[in-house]
Protein backbone atom coordinates (compact mmCIF):
# COMPACT_ATOMS: atom_id res chain seq x y z
CA UNK A 1 0.00 0.00 0.00
CA UNK A 2 1.15 3.49 -0.78
CA UNK A 3 1.80 5.33 2.47
CA UNK A 4 1.80 8.83 1.03
CA UNK A 5 -1.64 9.85 2.42
CA UNK A 6 -0.59 9.44 6.04
CA UNK A 7 2.78 11.18 5.74
CA UNK A 8 1.48 14.79 5.89
CA UNK A 9 0.24 13.93 9.39
CA UNK A 10 3.17 11.79 10.50
CA UNK A 11 6.01 14.05 9.36
CA UNK A 12 4.97 17.18 11.29
CA UNK A 13 3.97 15.06 14.31
CA UNK A 14 7.41 13.46 14.42
CA UNK A 15 9.09 16.79 13.78
CA UNK A 16 7.06 18.32 16.58
CA UNK A 17 8.05 15.55 18.98
CA UNK A 18 11.72 15.93 18.07
CA UNK A 19 11.46 19.72 18.43
CA UNK A 20 9.82 19.35 21.84
CA UNK A 21 12.74 17.19 22.96
CA UNK A 22 15.18 19.73 21.53
CA UNK A 23 13.79 22.65 23.51
CA UNK A 24 17.10 23.18 25.29
CA UNK A 25 19.13 22.90 22.08
CA UNK A 26 20.42 26.07 20.38
CA UNK A 27 17.70 27.86 18.49
CA UNK A 28 19.47 27.31 15.18
CA UNK A 29 19.22 23.54 15.53
CA UNK A 30 15.49 23.83 16.11
CA UNK A 31 15.18 26.15 13.16
CA UNK A 32 16.91 23.71 10.83
CA UNK A 33 14.70 20.81 11.96
CA UNK A 34 11.54 22.91 11.67
CA UNK A 35 12.49 24.22 8.22
CA UNK A 36 13.35 20.75 6.95
CA UNK A 37 10.03 19.44 8.21
CA UNK A 38 8.15 22.33 6.61
CA UNK A 39 9.93 21.78 3.28
CA UNK A 40 9.20 18.05 3.44
CA UNK A 41 5.57 18.87 4.19
CA UNK A 42 5.38 21.10 1.14
CA UNK A 43 6.91 18.37 -1.04
CA UNK A 44 4.45 15.83 0.34
CA UNK A 45 1.54 18.18 -0.24
CA UNK A 46 2.61 18.73 -3.86
CA UNK A 47 2.92 14.97 -4.34
CA UNK A 48 -0.58 14.49 -2.89
CA UNK A 49 -1.99 17.14 -5.19
CA UNK A 50 -0.33 15.61 -8.24
CA UNK A 51 -1.82 12.26 -7.31
CA UNK A 52 -5.29 13.68 -6.78
CA UNK A 53 -5.34 16.15 -9.68
CA UNK A 54 -6.71 13.67 -12.22
CA UNK A 55 -9.68 12.90 -9.97
CA UNK A 56 -8.22 9.86 -8.23
CA UNK A 57 -9.66 9.35 -4.76
CA UNK A 58 -7.21 7.48 -2.58
CA UNK A 59 -8.45 5.66 0.50
CA UNK A 60 -5.84 4.79 3.12
CA UNK A 61 -6.74 2.30 5.82
CA UNK A 62 -4.88 3.22 8.99
CA UNK A 63 -3.34 0.15 10.59
CA UNK A 64 -4.72 -1.95 7.70
CA UNK A 65 -8.07 -2.29 9.45
CA UNK A 66 -11.09 -2.69 7.19
CA UNK A 67 -13.02 0.54 6.73
CA UNK A 68 -15.95 -0.42 8.97
CA UNK A 69 -13.67 -1.10 11.94
CA UNK A 70 -10.78 1.32 11.57
CA UNK A 71 -10.12 4.90 10.60
CA UNK A 72 -9.70 5.84 6.96
CA UNK A 73 -7.83 8.73 5.44
CA UNK A 74 -9.22 10.04 2.19
CA UNK A 75 -7.27 12.03 -0.38
CA UNK A 76 -9.31 13.76 -3.02
CA UNK A 77 -8.86 17.05 -4.80
CA UNK A 78 -10.27 19.14 -1.94
CA UNK A 79 -8.16 17.48 0.77
CA UNK A 80 -4.98 17.72 -1.30
CA UNK A 81 -5.65 21.37 -2.10
CA UNK A 82 -6.18 22.29 1.55
CA UNK A 83 -3.09 20.39 2.67
CA UNK A 84 -1.06 22.25 0.08
CA UNK A 85 -2.43 25.61 1.23
CA UNK A 86 -1.58 24.75 4.84
CA UNK A 87 1.92 23.60 3.97
CA UNK A 88 2.59 26.77 1.96
CA UNK A 89 1.40 29.08 4.71
CA UNK A 90 3.24 27.09 7.38
CA UNK A 91 6.52 27.38 5.48
CA UNK A 92 6.07 31.12 4.96
CA UNK A 93 5.03 31.66 8.57
CA UNK A 94 8.05 29.75 9.76
CA UNK A 95 10.27 31.85 7.52
CA UNK A 96 8.80 34.99 9.07
CA UNK A 97 9.33 33.67 12.58
CA UNK A 98 12.98 32.87 11.86
CA UNK A 99 13.77 36.56 12.08
CA UNK A 100 13.56 36.35 15.85
CA UNK A 101 9.93 35.89 16.91
CA UNK A 102 10.60 32.19 17.52
CA UNK A 103 13.02 33.02 20.34
CA UNK A 104 10.33 34.12 22.75
CA UNK A 105 9.28 30.63 23.81
CA UNK A 106 11.33 27.44 23.56
CA UNK A 107 8.38 25.43 22.25
CA UNK A 108 7.35 27.68 19.38
CA UNK A 109 8.59 25.36 16.63
CA UNK A 110 7.16 22.23 18.26
CA UNK A 111 3.71 23.81 18.66
CA UNK A 112 3.85 25.13 15.11
CA UNK A 113 4.60 21.63 13.79
CA UNK A 114 1.82 20.08 15.89
CA UNK A 115 -0.62 22.62 14.56
CA UNK A 116 0.35 21.77 10.98
CA UNK A 117 -0.13 18.08 11.79
CA UNK A 118 -3.58 18.80 13.22
CA UNK A 119 -4.60 20.90 10.22
CA UNK A 120 -3.40 18.32 7.70
CA UNK A 121 -5.06 15.52 9.65
CA UNK A 122 -8.36 17.39 9.76
CA UNK A 123 -8.25 17.80 5.98
CA UNK A 124 -7.32 14.18 5.29
CA UNK A 125 -9.45 12.18 7.68
CA UNK A 126 -12.55 10.34 6.54
CA UNK A 127 -13.88 9.61 10.02
CA UNK A 128 -16.11 11.99 11.96
CA UNK A 129 -14.68 11.25 15.40
CA UNK A 130 -11.17 11.42 14.03
CA UNK A 131 -12.07 14.86 12.67
CA UNK A 132 -12.90 15.86 16.25
CA UNK A 133 -9.55 14.50 17.46
CA UNK A 134 -7.62 16.44 14.83
CA UNK A 135 -9.65 19.55 15.66
CA UNK A 136 -8.45 19.14 19.23
CA UNK A 137 -4.85 18.58 18.12
CA UNK A 138 -4.84 21.79 16.16
CA UNK A 139 -6.71 23.66 18.88
CA UNK A 140 -4.38 22.56 21.65
CA UNK A 141 -1.37 23.75 19.69
CA UNK A 142 -3.18 26.95 18.78
CA UNK A 143 -3.77 27.67 22.49
CA UNK A 144 -0.03 27.38 23.07
CA UNK A 145 0.78 29.46 20.02
CA UNK A 146 -1.72 32.14 20.97
CA UNK A 147 -0.01 32.52 24.34
CA UNK A 148 3.31 32.75 22.52
CA UNK A 149 4.90 36.02 23.53
CA UNK A 150 3.00 36.37 26.80
CA UNK A 151 1.28 39.47 28.16
CA UNK A 152 -1.95 40.11 30.06
CA UNK A 153 -3.94 40.86 26.91
CA UNK A 154 -2.98 37.56 25.28
CA UNK A 155 -3.87 35.68 28.46
CA UNK A 156 -7.30 37.21 28.59
CA UNK A 157 -7.96 36.56 24.89
CA UNK A 158 -6.74 33.00 25.32
CA UNK A 159 -9.21 32.44 28.15
CA UNK A 160 -12.07 33.51 25.87
CA UNK A 161 -10.73 31.57 22.93
CA UNK A 162 -10.21 28.34 24.87
CA UNK A 163 -13.65 28.62 26.47
CA UNK A 164 -15.36 29.14 23.13
CA UNK A 165 -13.61 26.18 21.61
CA UNK A 166 -14.25 23.90 24.59
CA UNK A 167 -17.97 24.60 24.27
CA UNK A 168 -17.68 23.94 20.54
CA UNK A 169 -15.97 20.61 21.23
CA UNK A 170 -18.72 19.64 23.67
CA UNK A 171 -21.36 20.29 21.02
CA UNK A 172 -19.32 18.41 18.44
CA UNK A 173 -19.18 15.38 20.74
CA UNK A 174 -22.92 15.49 21.36
CA UNK A 175 -23.57 15.56 17.61
CA UNK A 176 -21.13 12.72 16.99
CA UNK A 177 -22.69 10.68 19.80
CA UNK A 178 -26.21 11.15 18.42
CA UNK A 179 -25.12 10.15 14.92
CA UNK A 180 -23.41 7.08 16.30
CA UNK A 181 -26.37 6.19 18.48
CA UNK A 182 -28.76 6.34 15.52
CA UNK A 183 -26.60 4.98 12.72
CA UNK A 184 -23.94 2.91 14.44
CA UNK A 185 -20.95 4.18 12.50
CA UNK A 186 -18.61 7.16 12.40
CA UNK A 187 -16.97 6.61 9.04
CA UNK A 188 -18.16 9.55 6.92
CA UNK A 189 -18.77 7.50 3.80
CA UNK A 190 -20.63 4.86 5.77
CA UNK A 191 -22.62 7.60 7.51
CA UNK A 192 -23.54 9.04 4.12
CA UNK A 193 -24.63 5.60 2.96
CA UNK A 194 -26.74 5.03 6.05
CA UNK A 195 -28.27 8.52 6.24
CA UNK A 196 -29.47 8.09 2.65
CA UNK A 197 -31.31 4.92 3.69
CA UNK A 198 -32.47 6.07 7.14
CA UNK A 199 -36.18 5.64 7.89
CA UNK A 200 -38.23 8.83 8.40
CA UNK A 201 -38.57 7.95 12.09
CA UNK A 202 -34.88 8.81 12.60
CA UNK A 203 -35.11 12.03 10.61
CA UNK A 204 -35.39 14.37 13.58
CA UNK A 205 -32.37 12.97 15.40
CA UNK A 206 -30.22 12.90 12.26
CA UNK A 207 -31.19 16.42 11.27
CA UNK A 208 -30.61 17.85 14.72
CA UNK A 209 -27.20 16.19 14.91
CA UNK A 210 -26.40 17.59 11.48
CA UNK A 211 -27.41 21.09 12.48
CA UNK A 212 -25.45 20.84 15.74
CA UNK A 213 -22.41 20.03 13.63
CA UNK A 214 -23.18 23.07 11.50
CA UNK A 215 -23.11 25.19 14.64
CA UNK A 216 -19.71 23.80 15.60
CA UNK A 217 -18.25 24.39 12.16
CA UNK A 218 -19.75 27.88 12.10
CA UNK A 219 -17.95 28.57 15.37
CA UNK A 220 -14.63 27.43 13.88
CA UNK A 221 -15.22 29.41 10.71
CA UNK A 222 -16.41 32.52 12.62
CA UNK A 223 -19.90 32.81 11.22
CA UNK A 224 -22.53 35.12 12.69
CA UNK A 225 -23.29 35.12 15.62
CA UNK A 226 -20.26 33.07 16.61
CA UNK A 227 -17.57 35.34 15.19
CA UNK A 228 -17.14 37.69 18.15
CA UNK A 229 -14.07 35.86 19.44
CA UNK A 230 -12.11 36.14 16.22
CA UNK A 231 -11.00 39.75 15.63
CA UNK A 232 -9.72 40.25 19.16
CA UNK A 233 -8.05 36.86 19.35
CA UNK A 234 -6.26 37.25 16.05
CA UNK A 235 -5.25 40.79 16.94
CA UNK A 236 -3.64 39.45 20.11
CA UNK A 237 -1.68 36.66 18.38
CA UNK A 238 1.85 37.20 17.13
CA UNK A 239 2.17 37.63 13.38
CA UNK A 240 3.38 34.18 12.21
CA UNK A 241 0.78 32.58 14.45
CA UNK A 242 -2.00 34.86 13.20
CA UNK A 243 -1.20 33.96 9.61
CA UNK A 244 -1.39 30.25 10.39
CA UNK A 245 -4.68 30.96 12.16
CA UNK A 246 -5.91 32.38 8.86
CA UNK A 247 -5.97 28.76 7.64
CA UNK A 248 -7.58 27.60 10.86
CA UNK A 249 -10.88 29.36 10.17
CA UNK A 250 -10.80 27.68 6.77
CA UNK A 251 -10.94 24.32 8.56
CA UNK A 252 -14.51 25.17 9.50
CA UNK A 253 -15.32 25.97 5.89
CA UNK A 254 -13.63 22.78 4.73
CA UNK A 255 -15.62 20.76 7.26
CA UNK A 256 -18.88 22.31 6.08
CA UNK A 257 -18.00 21.53 2.47
CA UNK A 258 -17.04 17.97 3.30
CA UNK A 259 -19.83 17.04 5.68
CA UNK A 260 -22.71 18.78 3.93
CA UNK A 261 -21.83 17.50 0.47
CA UNK A 262 -20.98 13.97 1.57
CA UNK A 263 -23.30 13.24 4.51
CA UNK A 264 -26.10 15.71 3.88
CA UNK A 265 -25.85 16.21 0.12
CA UNK A 266 -28.63 16.22 -2.46
CA UNK A 267 -29.19 12.45 -2.30
CA UNK A 268 -29.13 12.16 1.48
CA UNK A 269 -32.76 11.16 1.97
CA UNK A 270 -34.00 12.55 5.28
CA UNK A 271 -30.93 14.78 5.62
CA UNK A 272 -30.87 16.13 2.06
CA UNK A 273 -29.50 19.67 1.60
CA UNK A 274 -29.61 20.27 5.32
CA UNK A 275 -27.23 23.20 5.66
CA UNK A 276 -27.75 25.34 2.58
CA UNK A 277 -30.97 27.15 3.62
CA UNK A 278 -29.25 28.23 6.87
CA UNK A 279 -25.94 29.26 5.39
CA UNK A 280 -27.27 31.81 2.92
CA UNK A 281 -28.96 34.32 5.28
CA UNK A 282 -26.38 33.85 8.02
CA UNK A 283 -23.54 34.28 5.53
CA UNK A 284 -25.08 37.48 4.18
CA UNK A 285 -25.54 38.92 7.68
CA UNK A 286 -21.95 37.99 8.50
CA UNK A 287 -20.68 39.84 5.42
CA UNK A 288 -22.65 42.95 6.33
CA UNK A 289 -21.57 43.01 9.97
CA UNK A 290 -17.94 42.23 9.13
CA UNK A 291 -17.90 45.21 6.76
CA UNK A 292 -19.20 47.45 9.54
CA UNK A 293 -16.63 45.97 11.92
CA UNK A 294 -13.88 46.68 9.41
CA UNK A 295 -15.02 50.30 9.20
CA UNK A 296 -15.03 50.63 12.99
CA UNK A 297 -11.77 48.76 13.68
CA UNK A 298 -9.29 50.78 15.68
CA UNK A 299 -6.18 48.85 14.72
CA UNK A 300 -4.89 47.27 11.54
CA UNK A 301 -4.83 43.76 12.95
CA UNK A 302 -8.42 44.00 14.15
CA UNK A 303 -9.35 45.28 10.69
CA UNK A 304 -7.75 42.20 9.13
CA UNK A 305 -9.62 40.02 11.62
CA UNK A 306 -12.91 41.46 10.37
CA UNK A 307 -11.77 40.88 6.78
CA UNK A 308 -11.35 37.20 7.66
CA UNK A 309 -14.86 37.12 9.10
CA UNK A 310 -16.17 38.77 5.94
CA UNK A 311 -14.37 36.30 3.70
CA UNK A 312 -15.88 33.42 5.65
CA UNK A 313 -19.32 34.96 5.09
CA UNK A 314 -18.69 35.31 1.35
CA UNK A 315 -17.51 31.70 1.20
CA UNK A 316 -20.61 30.43 2.95
CA UNK A 317 -22.90 32.43 0.67
CA UNK A 318 -21.16 30.95 -2.37
CA UNK A 319 -21.21 27.43 -0.92
CA UNK A 320 -24.90 27.74 -0.04
CA UNK A 321 -25.81 27.83 -3.73
CA UNK A 322 -24.29 24.34 -3.95
CA UNK A 323 -23.69 24.38 -7.68
CA UNK A 324 -20.48 23.30 -9.36
CA UNK A 325 -19.71 26.84 -10.49
CA UNK A 326 -20.38 28.46 -7.10
CA UNK A 327 -18.36 25.97 -5.04
CA UNK A 328 -15.54 26.14 -7.58
CA UNK A 329 -15.52 29.94 -7.32
CA UNK A 330 -15.69 29.68 -3.52
CA UNK A 331 -12.59 27.48 -3.43
CA UNK A 332 -10.69 29.93 -5.61
CA UNK A 333 -11.83 32.74 -3.33
CA UNK A 334 -10.72 30.69 -0.31
CA UNK A 335 -7.18 30.37 -1.69
CA UNK A 336 -6.97 34.04 -2.52
CA UNK A 337 -8.45 35.37 0.72
CA UNK A 338 -6.25 33.16 2.90
CA UNK A 339 -3.09 34.36 1.17
CA UNK A 340 -4.13 38.01 1.13
CA UNK A 341 -5.19 38.17 4.79
CA UNK A 342 -2.02 36.33 5.82
CA UNK A 343 0.03 38.95 3.99
CA UNK A 344 -1.88 41.72 5.76
CA UNK A 345 -1.16 40.14 9.17
CA UNK A 346 2.58 40.11 8.44
CA UNK A 347 2.37 43.67 7.17
CA UNK A 348 0.49 44.82 10.28
CA UNK A 349 3.25 43.35 12.40
CA UNK A 350 5.95 45.19 10.44
CA UNK A 351 4.01 48.45 10.66
CA UNK A 352 3.52 47.97 14.37
CA UNK A 353 7.23 47.63 14.95
CA UNK A 354 8.11 50.39 12.47
CA UNK A 355 6.05 52.90 14.43
CA UNK A 356 7.48 54.00 17.70
CA UNK A 357 4.57 54.28 20.09
CA UNK A 358 1.28 53.94 18.29
CA UNK A 359 1.70 50.30 17.25
CA UNK A 360 -0.79 49.42 14.53
CA UNK A 361 -3.45 51.65 16.06
CA UNK A 362 -5.57 53.58 13.57
CA UNK A 363 -6.48 56.21 16.16
CA UNK A 364 -3.03 57.65 16.75
CA UNK A 365 -0.64 59.26 14.30
CA UNK A 366 2.98 58.27 14.49
CA UNK A 367 6.05 58.36 12.30
CA UNK A 368 6.73 55.17 10.40
CA UNK A 369 10.07 53.77 9.33
CA UNK A 370 10.37 52.49 5.74
CA UNK A 371 7.14 54.05 4.80
CA UNK A 372 7.43 53.68 1.04
CA UNK A 373 8.26 49.98 0.89
CA UNK A 374 5.65 49.04 3.46
CA UNK A 375 3.11 51.32 1.82
CA UNK A 376 3.65 49.68 -1.55
CA UNK A 377 3.22 46.22 -0.05
CA UNK A 378 0.08 47.43 1.73
CA UNK A 379 -1.39 48.71 -1.53
CA UNK A 380 -0.79 45.34 -3.19
CA UNK A 381 -2.29 43.36 -0.33
CA UNK A 382 -5.20 45.77 0.11
CA UNK A 383 -6.06 45.70 -3.60
CA UNK A 384 -5.99 41.91 -3.44
CA UNK A 385 -8.17 41.61 -0.35
CA UNK A 386 -10.62 44.35 -1.33
CA UNK A 387 -11.34 42.54 -4.61
CA UNK A 388 -10.25 45.34 -6.91
CA UNK A 389 -8.87 44.54 -10.35
CA UNK A 390 -6.35 43.31 -11.39
CA UNK A 391 -5.65 40.99 -8.45
CA UNK A 392 -7.08 37.53 -7.81
CA UNK A 393 -9.64 38.86 -5.34
CA UNK A 394 -11.47 40.65 -8.14
CA UNK A 395 -11.56 37.53 -10.28
CA UNK A 396 -12.67 35.43 -7.33
CA UNK A 397 -15.49 37.73 -6.33
CA UNK A 398 -16.59 38.15 -9.96
CA UNK A 399 -16.67 34.36 -10.30
CA UNK A 400 -18.69 34.03 -7.10
CA UNK A 401 -21.23 36.65 -8.20
CA UNK A 402 -21.41 35.16 -11.68
CA UNK A 403 -21.97 31.67 -10.29
CA UNK A 404 -24.75 32.87 -7.98
CA UNK A 405 -26.22 34.74 -10.92
CA UNK A 406 -29.79 35.90 -10.94
CA UNK A 407 -31.28 32.99 -9.06
CA UNK A 408 -34.03 33.69 -6.52
CA UNK A 409 -31.99 35.62 -3.97
CA UNK A 410 -29.41 36.84 -6.48
CA UNK A 411 -30.29 40.51 -6.15
CA UNK A 412 -29.88 40.44 -2.38
CA UNK A 413 -26.57 38.64 -2.58
CA UNK A 414 -25.17 40.99 -5.20
CA UNK A 415 -26.25 44.04 -3.18
CA UNK A 416 -24.79 42.84 0.10
CA UNK A 417 -21.51 41.61 -1.38
CA UNK A 418 -20.95 44.75 -3.45
CA UNK A 419 -21.89 47.17 -0.66
CA UNK A 420 -19.67 45.36 1.80
CA UNK A 421 -16.82 45.42 -0.74
CA UNK A 422 -17.23 49.19 -0.89
CA UNK A 423 -17.07 49.39 2.91
CA UNK A 424 -13.92 47.27 2.90
CA UNK A 425 -12.31 49.51 0.27
CA UNK A 426 -13.15 52.57 2.37
CA UNK A 427 -11.84 50.95 5.55
CA UNK A 428 -8.60 49.87 3.89
CA UNK A 429 -8.10 53.22 2.19
CA UNK A 430 -8.64 55.00 5.49
CA UNK A 431 -6.26 52.68 7.28
CA UNK A 432 -3.66 53.13 4.55
CA UNK A 433 -3.85 56.90 4.45
CA UNK A 434 -3.74 57.03 8.24
CA UNK A 435 -0.76 54.72 8.59
CA UNK A 436 1.27 55.82 5.60
CA UNK A 437 0.32 59.42 4.79
CA UNK A 438 -0.62 61.24 7.94
CA UNK A 439 2.46 60.15 9.81
CA UNK A 440 5.87 61.26 8.68
CA UNK A 441 8.73 59.10 7.57
CA UNK A 442 10.52 58.30 10.81
CA UNK A 443 13.43 60.79 11.04
CA UNK A 444 15.83 58.19 12.41
CA UNK A 445 14.88 55.60 9.79
CA UNK A 446 18.16 55.91 7.95
CA UNK A 447 20.28 55.71 11.06
CA UNK A 448 18.49 52.89 12.81
CA UNK A 449 18.99 49.96 10.48
CA UNK A 450 17.68 47.75 13.22
CA UNK A 451 14.18 48.99 12.55
CA UNK A 452 14.30 47.66 9.01
CA UNK A 453 12.41 44.36 8.89
CA UNK A 454 14.99 41.58 8.67
CA UNK A 455 15.48 39.65 5.44
CA UNK A 456 13.41 36.54 6.33
CA UNK A 457 10.43 38.72 7.18
CA UNK A 458 10.65 40.63 3.93
CA UNK A 459 11.09 37.36 2.06
CA UNK A 460 8.01 35.89 3.72
CA UNK A 461 5.87 38.90 2.86
CA UNK A 462 7.27 38.91 -0.67
CA UNK A 463 6.46 35.23 -1.12
CA UNK A 464 2.88 35.75 0.04
CA UNK A 465 2.32 38.69 -2.29
CA UNK A 466 3.98 36.76 -5.09
CA UNK A 467 1.74 33.76 -4.61
CA UNK A 468 -1.23 36.11 -4.61
CA UNK A 469 -0.04 37.49 -7.96
CA UNK A 470 0.62 33.96 -9.22
CA UNK A 471 -2.95 33.07 -8.34
CA UNK A 472 -4.03 35.90 -10.65
CA UNK A 473 -1.67 34.99 -13.49
CA UNK A 474 -2.53 31.29 -13.40
CA UNK A 475 -6.19 31.93 -12.75
CA UNK A 476 -7.33 29.71 -15.62
CA UNK A 477 -5.71 26.41 -14.53
CA UNK A 478 -6.47 27.11 -10.88
CA UNK A 479 -10.15 27.82 -11.47
CA UNK A 480 -10.40 24.75 -13.70
CA UNK A 481 -8.98 22.73 -10.85
CA UNK A 482 -11.30 24.21 -8.23
CA UNK A 483 -14.25 23.59 -10.54
CA UNK A 484 -13.23 19.98 -10.96
CA UNK A 485 -12.92 19.80 -7.16
CA UNK A 486 -16.46 21.11 -6.82
CA UNK A 487 -17.72 18.57 -9.35
CA UNK A 488 -16.06 15.82 -7.33
CA UNK A 489 -17.65 17.11 -4.12
CA UNK A 490 -21.11 17.27 -5.60
CA UNK A 491 -20.94 13.66 -6.78
CA UNK A 492 -20.06 11.88 -3.55
CA UNK A 493 -21.25 8.43 -4.66
CA UNK A 494 -17.86 7.61 -6.15
CA UNK A 495 -16.12 8.39 -2.87
CA UNK A 496 -18.67 6.45 -0.81
CA UNK A 497 -18.27 3.42 -3.05
CA UNK A 498 -14.49 3.65 -2.86
CA UNK A 499 -14.35 3.91 0.93
CA UNK A 500 -16.88 1.15 1.53
CA UNK A 501 -15.18 -1.07 -1.02
CA UNK A 502 -11.64 -0.52 0.30
CA UNK A 503 -10.05 -3.86 1.10
CA UNK A 504 -7.30 -4.31 3.68
CA UNK A 505 -4.06 -5.39 2.12
CA UNK A 506 -3.30 -9.08 2.37
CA UNK A 507 -0.50 -9.55 4.88
CA UNK A 508 2.19 -10.45 2.36
CA UNK A 509 5.28 -9.04 4.02
CA UNK A 510 4.60 -10.16 7.58
CA UNK A 511 7.49 -11.92 9.28
CA UNK A 512 7.32 -15.69 8.83
Amino acid at each position, binding site marked *: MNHLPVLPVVVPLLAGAVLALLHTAPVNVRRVVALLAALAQLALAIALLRGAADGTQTVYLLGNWPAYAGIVLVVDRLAALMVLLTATLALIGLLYALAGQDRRTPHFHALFAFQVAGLSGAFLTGDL*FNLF*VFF*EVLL*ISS*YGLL*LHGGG*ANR*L*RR*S*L*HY*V*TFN*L*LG*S*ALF*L*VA*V*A*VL*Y*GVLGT*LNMADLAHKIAQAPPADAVLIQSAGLLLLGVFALKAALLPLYLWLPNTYAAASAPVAMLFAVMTKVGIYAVLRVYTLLFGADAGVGANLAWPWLLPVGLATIALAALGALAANSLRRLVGYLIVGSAGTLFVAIASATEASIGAALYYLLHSTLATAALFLLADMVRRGRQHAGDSLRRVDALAHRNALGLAFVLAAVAVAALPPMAGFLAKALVLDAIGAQGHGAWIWTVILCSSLCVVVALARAGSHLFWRGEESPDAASSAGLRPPLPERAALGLLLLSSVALTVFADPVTQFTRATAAQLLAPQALIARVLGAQPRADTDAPP
Partner: protein
Amino acid sequence: MELLLASAIGVLIAAGVYLALRARSFDLILGLTLISYAVNLCIFAMGRLAPGKPPVIRDGVALTLTNHADPLPQALVLTAIVISFAMTALLLVIALRARSAGASDHVDGREPGDKA
Protein backbone atom coordinates in the same frame (compact mmCIF):
# COMPACT_ATOMS: atom_id res chain seq x y z
CA MET B 1 -32.69 4.06 34.10
CA GLU B 2 -33.01 6.01 30.82
CA LEU B 3 -34.99 8.75 32.57
CA LEU B 4 -32.46 8.95 35.40
CA LEU B 5 -29.49 9.20 33.06
CA ALA B 6 -31.18 11.65 30.71
CA SER B 7 -32.17 13.96 33.56
CA ALA B 8 -28.67 13.68 35.05
CA ILE B 9 -27.22 14.84 31.73
CA GLY B 10 -29.75 17.64 31.57
CA VAL B 11 -29.06 18.83 35.11
CA LEU B 12 -25.30 18.71 34.58
CA ILE B 13 -25.58 20.75 31.38
CA ALA B 14 -27.89 23.28 33.02
CA ALA B 15 -25.60 23.69 36.01
CA GLY B 16 -22.59 23.95 33.69
CA VAL B 17 -24.17 26.62 31.54
CA TYR B 18 -25.24 28.59 34.62
CA LEU B 19 -21.74 28.48 36.07
CA ALA B 20 -20.11 29.34 32.74
CA LEU B 21 -22.35 32.38 32.36
CA ARG B 22 -21.27 33.74 35.75
CA ALA B 23 -18.16 34.95 33.93
CA ARG B 24 -15.77 34.35 36.82
CA SER B 25 -12.80 32.30 35.80
CA PHE B 26 -13.10 29.65 38.52
CA ASP B 27 -16.86 29.24 38.06
CA LEU B 28 -16.28 29.08 34.33
CA ILE B 29 -13.85 26.20 34.68
CA LEU B 30 -16.20 24.32 37.00
CA GLY B 31 -19.02 24.90 34.54
CA LEU B 32 -17.01 23.61 31.59
CA THR B 33 -16.03 20.56 33.63
CA LEU B 34 -19.68 19.81 34.39
CA ILE B 35 -20.57 20.21 30.72
CA SER B 36 -17.82 17.79 29.72
CA TYR B 37 -19.10 15.26 32.29
CA ALA B 38 -22.55 15.54 30.75
CA VAL B 39 -21.16 15.09 27.24
CA ASN B 40 -19.21 12.02 28.31
CA LEU B 41 -22.32 10.49 29.83
CA CYS B 42 -24.19 11.28 26.63
CA ILE B 43 -21.61 9.49 24.45
CA PHE B 44 -21.62 6.59 26.86
CA ALA B 45 -25.38 6.31 26.71
CA MET B 46 -25.27 6.12 22.91
CA GLY B 47 -23.88 2.60 23.25
CA ARG B 48 -27.27 1.76 24.83
CA LEU B 49 -27.77 1.16 28.54
CA ALA B 50 -27.59 -2.52 29.42
CA PRO B 51 -26.44 -4.04 32.71
CA GLY B 52 -24.30 -7.16 32.86
CA LYS B 53 -22.88 -7.08 29.34
CA PRO B 54 -19.11 -6.61 29.39
CA PRO B 55 -17.51 -5.57 26.10
CA VAL B 56 -15.25 -8.60 26.32
CA ILE B 57 -15.30 -11.46 23.84
CA ARG B 58 -15.87 -14.82 25.53
CA ASP B 59 -15.74 -18.32 24.11
CA GLY B 60 -19.05 -19.80 23.12
CA VAL B 61 -20.91 -16.49 22.99
CA ALA B 62 -21.94 -15.18 19.60
CA LEU B 63 -20.23 -11.93 18.54
CA THR B 64 -23.31 -9.73 18.35
CA LEU B 65 -24.40 -6.68 20.28
CA THR B 66 -27.17 -8.69 21.94
CA ASN B 67 -24.54 -10.47 23.99
CA HIS B 68 -21.95 -7.73 24.38
CA ALA B 69 -21.94 -4.03 25.15
CA ASP B 70 -20.78 -1.85 22.27
CA PRO B 71 -17.08 -1.17 22.94
CA LEU B 72 -16.78 1.81 20.59
CA PRO B 73 -18.58 4.45 22.71
CA GLN B 74 -16.37 3.43 25.61
CA ALA B 75 -13.29 4.06 23.49
CA LEU B 76 -14.74 7.38 22.35
CA VAL B 77 -15.49 8.38 25.92
CA LEU B 78 -11.95 7.55 26.94
CA THR B 79 -10.59 9.85 24.22
CA ALA B 80 -13.03 12.58 25.18
CA ILE B 81 -12.14 12.29 28.87
CA VAL B 82 -8.42 12.57 28.19
CA ILE B 83 -8.91 15.58 25.95
CA SER B 84 -11.24 17.42 28.32
CA PHE B 85 -8.95 16.65 31.24
CA ALA B 86 -5.97 18.18 29.43
CA MET B 87 -8.07 21.17 28.38
CA THR B 88 -9.22 21.79 31.95
CA ALA B 89 -5.64 21.71 33.18
CA LEU B 90 -4.61 24.19 30.49
CA LEU B 91 -7.54 26.44 31.22
CA LEU B 92 -6.69 26.41 34.93
CA VAL B 93 -3.15 27.56 34.16
CA ILE B 94 -4.38 30.31 31.87
CA ALA B 95 -6.96 31.43 34.42
CA LEU B 96 -4.41 31.50 37.22
CA ARG B 97 -1.95 33.47 35.11
CA ALA B 98 -4.68 35.87 34.01
CA ARG B 99 -5.77 36.29 37.62
CA SER B 100 -2.27 37.17 38.75
CA ALA B 101 -1.75 39.51 35.79
CA GLY B 102 -4.95 41.47 36.39
CA ALA B 103 -6.78 42.65 39.45
CA SER B 104 -9.95 40.71 38.87
CA ASP B 105 -11.03 37.13 38.30
CA HIS B 106 -13.70 38.30 35.87
CA VAL B 107 -13.14 36.69 32.48
CA ASP B 108 -12.68 40.10 30.89
CA GLY B 109 -9.89 40.92 33.32
CA ARG B 110 -11.81 43.78 34.91
CA GLU B 111 -14.92 44.18 36.99
CA PRO B 112 -18.09 44.92 35.02
CA GLY B 113 -18.60 48.66 34.98
CA ASP B 114 -14.90 49.48 35.37
CA LYS B 115 -13.39 51.49 32.60
CA ALA B 116 -10.18 50.32 30.88
